[in-house]
């Protein structure tokens, strides 16, 4: 299918999310749409999928102008989409999710589950996707959920498949599987629009690259372009992709975790007998695919979730039973993984958010009253120091961009003197420019002698920051390795292999992304 977008424009109020975008997607091509978060990639694809209506411009399929006013119209025209946040009903089975909207019935509206199961198996076998039609979606790993989404699109006979940030939740080897599946589709004549901000993936898979910045197409690039060139097109200026940092000068053990076990709400062992040390002046990165216990581990460190067994001590003091406020006062700084949910109060101003954990003490309060002057002064200093881009310090934090929101959170945490900084996904959904800044600040905090624990699912980030890497899988730490460990080995460990197994396997079967290094 030949798909052409011509002059598509969409504004939300005064913000022009897409400004006269032109794009041509040839049959059987893998077309990468590269751009930072908020550049307008998703808006564009939502228009193509009928979830949003363009203000002006045309969509042309096989030379004919079409109007796509609903997802069902998009499906009718052979467009399928795998959304970044999966559009799956968690309490439904795989088959129910796939048949939803196009149910086959045995007459009288009674579902024909047998046929639905057979169809799922058929598609699953055809592309080697290994999906069990009877499994509940909430019980299967995210990688498999993504395959369910892909099958959903295939079941609708999609000729163009839009993948919106599909690799964010996958392990390196799952990404490799996905790349293989994408190539299979390409051979079968299906076009793929691959939306991402990850440069390595773009280079590995794209036939054609279109770069979008601030709602406009800024140009096309060849997959042979260097990462630096692509990053510059994407951001609009030269960026340092790797932070300059000295060898760590590690001191005494600050955080000592012994035999930590956490049971989650559903009764599963989320953190399983974990031992971990973080020394003053070093960055330990906790690598792993999302949902392998990292969240629960950090929450246990902060006292946000009860500990079933084990002990945590900070600077030699046992804090296993301490409350969250005591722990913060003992010198733990915390950047939560979901900043919009746990990191700040969206409707509060920048100034208020910057003292969320400090307002209780001088100089920010006197008796029961807050001293707004001091709070504003503090805010102005932090805004200056952290280069927080905001029109006014009285604006609600929710109106800032993701990168600036994260700077607010980090600025607040670093305004206390810390023994330990725990930062979960410190740069998720953050623009490249801000990533650079946030990384530098984290490294500077390390150099000041703070112990730093970073939790990240992005191997690039781990490679950029870590002095040591602890890999987590199904609640266990499968190994603690050096910062120079190759990407493929880390990927295998993230799938549960031991260090030795990973070493052997990585040399025998390098992945597409790994072999690019």
């Amino acid at each position, binding site marked *: 299918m030949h798909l052409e977008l011509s002059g598509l424009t969409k504004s939300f109020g005064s913000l022009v999310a897409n400004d006269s975008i032109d794009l041509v997607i040839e049959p059987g091509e893998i077309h990468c749409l590269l751009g930072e978060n908020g550049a307008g990639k998703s808006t564009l694809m939502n228009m193509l*999928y009928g*979830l*949003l209506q363009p203000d002006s411009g045309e969509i042309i399929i096989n030379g004919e102008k079409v109007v796509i006013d*609903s*997802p*069902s119209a998009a*499906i009718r025209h052979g467009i399928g*989409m795998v*959304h970044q946040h999966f*559009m*799956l*009903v*968690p*309490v*439904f089975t795989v088959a*129910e*999710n796939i*048949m*939803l*909207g*196009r*149910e086959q*019935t045995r007459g*009288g*509206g*009674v*579902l024909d589950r047998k046929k639905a199961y057979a169809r799922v198996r058929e598609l699953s076998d055809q592309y080697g*996707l*290994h*999906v*069990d039609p009877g499994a509940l979606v909430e*019980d*299967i*790993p995210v*990688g*498999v959920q993504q395959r369910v989404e892909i099958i*959903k699109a295939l079941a609708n006979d999609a000729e163009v498949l839009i993948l919106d940030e599909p690799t964010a939740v996958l*392990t390196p*080897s*799952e990404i490799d599987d996905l790349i293989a599946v994408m190539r299979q589709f390409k051979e079968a004549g299906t076009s793929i629009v691959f939306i991402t901000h990850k440069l390595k993936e773009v280079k590995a898979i794209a036939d054609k690259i279109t770069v979008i910045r601030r709602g406009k197409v800024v140009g096309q690039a060849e997959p042979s372009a260097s990462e630096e060139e692509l990053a510059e097109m994407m951001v609009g200026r030269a960026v340092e992709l790797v932070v300059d940092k000295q060898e760590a000068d590690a001191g005494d053990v600050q955080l000592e975790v012994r035999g930590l076990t956490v*049971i*989650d*709400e*559903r*009764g*599963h*062992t989320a953190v399983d007998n974990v031992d971990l040390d973080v020394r003053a002046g070093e960055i330990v990165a906790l690598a792993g*695919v999302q949902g392998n216990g990292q969240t629960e581990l950090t929450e246990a460190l902060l006292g946000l979730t*009860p500990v*079933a067994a084990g002990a945590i001590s900070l600077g030699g003091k046992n804090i296993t039973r301490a409350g969250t406020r005591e722990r913060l006062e003992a010198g733990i700084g915390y950047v939560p993984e979901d900043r919009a949910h746990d990191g700040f109060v969206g409707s509060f101003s920048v100034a208020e958010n910057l003292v969320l954990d400090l307002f209780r003490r001088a100089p920010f309060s006197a008796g029961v009253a807050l001293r707004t002057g001091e709070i504003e002064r503090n805010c102005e200093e932090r805004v200056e120091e952290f280069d927080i881009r905001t029109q006014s310090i009285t604006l609600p934090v929710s109106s800032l961009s993701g990168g600036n929101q994260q700077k607010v959170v980090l600025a607040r945490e670093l305004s206390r003197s810390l023994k330990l900084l725990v930062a979960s996904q410190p740069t998720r959904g953050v623009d490249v420019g801000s990533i650079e800044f946030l990384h530098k600040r984290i490294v500077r905090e390390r150099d000041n002698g703070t112990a730093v624990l970073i939790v990240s699912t992005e191997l690039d980030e781990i490679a950029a920051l870590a002095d040591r890497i602890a890999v987590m899988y199904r609640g266990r730490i499968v190994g603690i390795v050096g910062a120079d460990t190759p990407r493929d080995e880390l*990927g*295998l460990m*993230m*799938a*549960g292999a*031991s260090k030795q*197994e*990973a070493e*052997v*396997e990585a040399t025998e079967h390098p992945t597409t992304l790994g072999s690019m290094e």
Partner: protein
Amino acid sequence: MTTTEATEPAGPTEPVEVERTIESPTERAQRIRYGSILLVLAAVTILLAATTGDGRAAFGLLGGSEVLGSAAAWVGILVLLAATVAAVVLPFTGRAPRATAALAPLLLLFAVMFFKTKGSASFSVPAGATAWTLAVLAVACAVVWVLRVAGGRLNGLLGSIVVIGFFAAFLCWAVAGKNLAFPISNQFQGTLNFATPLILGALAGVVCERAGVINIAIEGQFLFGAFTAALVSSTTGSSAAALIAAAATGVLLAALLAVFSIKYLVNQVVLGVVLVVFATGVTGYLYDEFMQENAADLNTPHVLTAVKIPGLGDIPFIGPILFNQTVLVYLMYLAVAVVTFVLFETRWGLRVRSVGEHPKAADTVGIKVSRVRYSAVLWAGVLAGLGGAFFTVGYGGAFVKEMTAGNGFIALAALIMGRWHPIGATVAALFFGFATQLQSQLQIVDTPIPGDLLLMAPYLATVVAVAGLVGRVRAPKADGEPYVKG
């Protein structure tokens, strides 16, 4: 793990291993909470046993007709016993939900009653000894629950034994040494009566909330249904017309709920309460202004008569309870089956559940979220309207102001206690019906407990049940959340 396995991350074919050997803190808290409720019940049972008077406790039964020969009766008993065993065994094999085991003691009880109805119309047991036996059994079961023997797989059975043991001991205590026999058949029959509107209302709630629209207005729909049924039955003399009209006014109020919640995105809880007040006002006004003055013409509805189903109605004990009822009760049976089937086995049901869980996902596969929600809310209106009709043409006769007396809210409680599942909601509604009927029966038997206190019992039970169970229930994810495109 070997290296070859390591190349297949997260095991594409194998589901995530679910380890249930360790109890989560939440599960533990839950177990202790329910355990304490059961222990309290068991302790009260002991207290009852200790204070049970001398003499025998008599229970009355409606005998079955003699159509069934003794051979048929034995077959019936065997069927009931087999069902009892099945209810206990099936949950262990994973072929039925755990809660199924709760049916076992009830089925066993029915088997005993079935046997007892042969011959005499009543029987008696030594009150003290029976109460003590039940008390010991209840304590044992509560303790086993708390100790979490068999990993909680016996919970359905244990809970049910404690509850039934408690009620049985309570009856022994209440009627010990009295000449008056406690009418057991009446108790069950009345349970069904009180439960019928609750079940219809709770089903209406299930359908609405599964589609993501909170329906607090069931009470209002009841009032509309009750009023209209009385009016139409009085003026036309046709019961069919009365039921249809009641369903129609249920739909009318549902339409208001749908338009304001789906189109105008009004807060659904506030909206529901407003609609109840509105329905109370409208029916109250019409009653005062017109109906009361012309009561002879407008408020003398024809109450539905019980229709005995040939064959089934002749089964001893069970027959008169289940199969000698009004059309409305039969409609209720049908509604439970139909709602369950439609929600889980049909295209419409799948779509209703999808818009209640994840409307955006439904939208992206081309389902019109608003249209599905409208249809669910309107169909639910039919059920709630019929439930309302029960108060007048189904049971009570003439319409009285605010006669539904909070039953719509009890239906709501049944829906929550039944975990948004049609069968669960039905069981919960039956429990509330049982409590209400027990209270009215005990007033007749003349117990030492004041009537007003007894009247409170079902509501107290509601609070306890909902508070104790609400922790582990999971409402439809998008329940009460309006869906805005984009």
